[in-house]
């Protein structure tokens, strides 16, 4: 387990230009990025959790951020071409995780509508929207960015 998590961490790199797919403004912070695929989700959760712990995020907020990132990354694997890019940075009081993939979210407001209780309902984006302080979505047929903000401590 430790070995594969380390293997994932070794792919972490400083973020450079992303080829013009981005629509959301580039953050003014040091950004780390890491490409992922379906087999990386377990290690991706560990990575986000240990980063949030290092940034002194509380346990509950940490778990929520991990779940939000996991749900959106799962969407990348399932609907967004099977792979995605996770970017991580912090601002003064907030941790930000962004996932970019090749998928097209034709109805971004879906994140704001509560799904039903039927087994088949899609809940990923809605869950992320519920447990983050802010979820920004930019999507076009060229790809999607989902940017999740989670404050380090609530004043």
């Amino acid at each position: 387990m430790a070995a594969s998590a380390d293997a994932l961490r070794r792919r972490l790199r400083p973020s450079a230009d992303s080829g013009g797919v981005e629509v959301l403004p580039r953050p003014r912070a040091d950004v780390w990025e890491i490409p992922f695929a379906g087999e990386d989700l377990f290690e991706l959760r560990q990575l986000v959790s240990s980063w949030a712990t290092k940034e002194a995020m509380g346990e509950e907020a940490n778990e929520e951020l991990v779940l939000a990132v996991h749900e959106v990354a799962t969407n990348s694997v399932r609907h967004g071409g099977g792979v995605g890019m996770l970017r991580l940075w912090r601002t003064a009081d907030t941790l930000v995780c962004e996932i970019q993939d090749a998928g097209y979210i034709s109805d971004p407001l879906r994140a704001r509508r509560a799904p039903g209780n039927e087994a088949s309902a899609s809940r990923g984006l809605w869950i992320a929207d519920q447990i983050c302080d802010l979820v920004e979505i930019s999507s076009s047929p060229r790809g999607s960015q989902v940017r999740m903000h989670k404050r380090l401590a609530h004043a």
Partner: protein
Amino acid sequence: MGAQEQLRIDSRQEADRVVLSLDGELDMANAPLLQRAIEAPQLNDTKTVVLDLQGLTFLDSTGLRIILSAREQCWRRGQEFAVTPGSQQVQRLLSVTGVGEHLRTLASADEVLA
């Protein structure tokens, strides 16, 4: 790391119920393990199926979907379906999604259904 190492499912028969105990993390990668466990033939003749979530440390929306479809499958077989409370993360997911209040929840796997 394989999906099997992240999730372990133990099945035990007790009188008129089968208890499936989940240990580890339930997500898209290993949800099929639970799907298979629910479809196992030894569950066909029991009166009640209990999913013991006490050892479950992570649950996502895919796992939740499998739990809900397991419940539907049990209902179609005329069986009772119940769960036990999982970790804080699991309980938070159930509460955020509103699914928790629609799941019959036992204090522990030993609790007798009324």
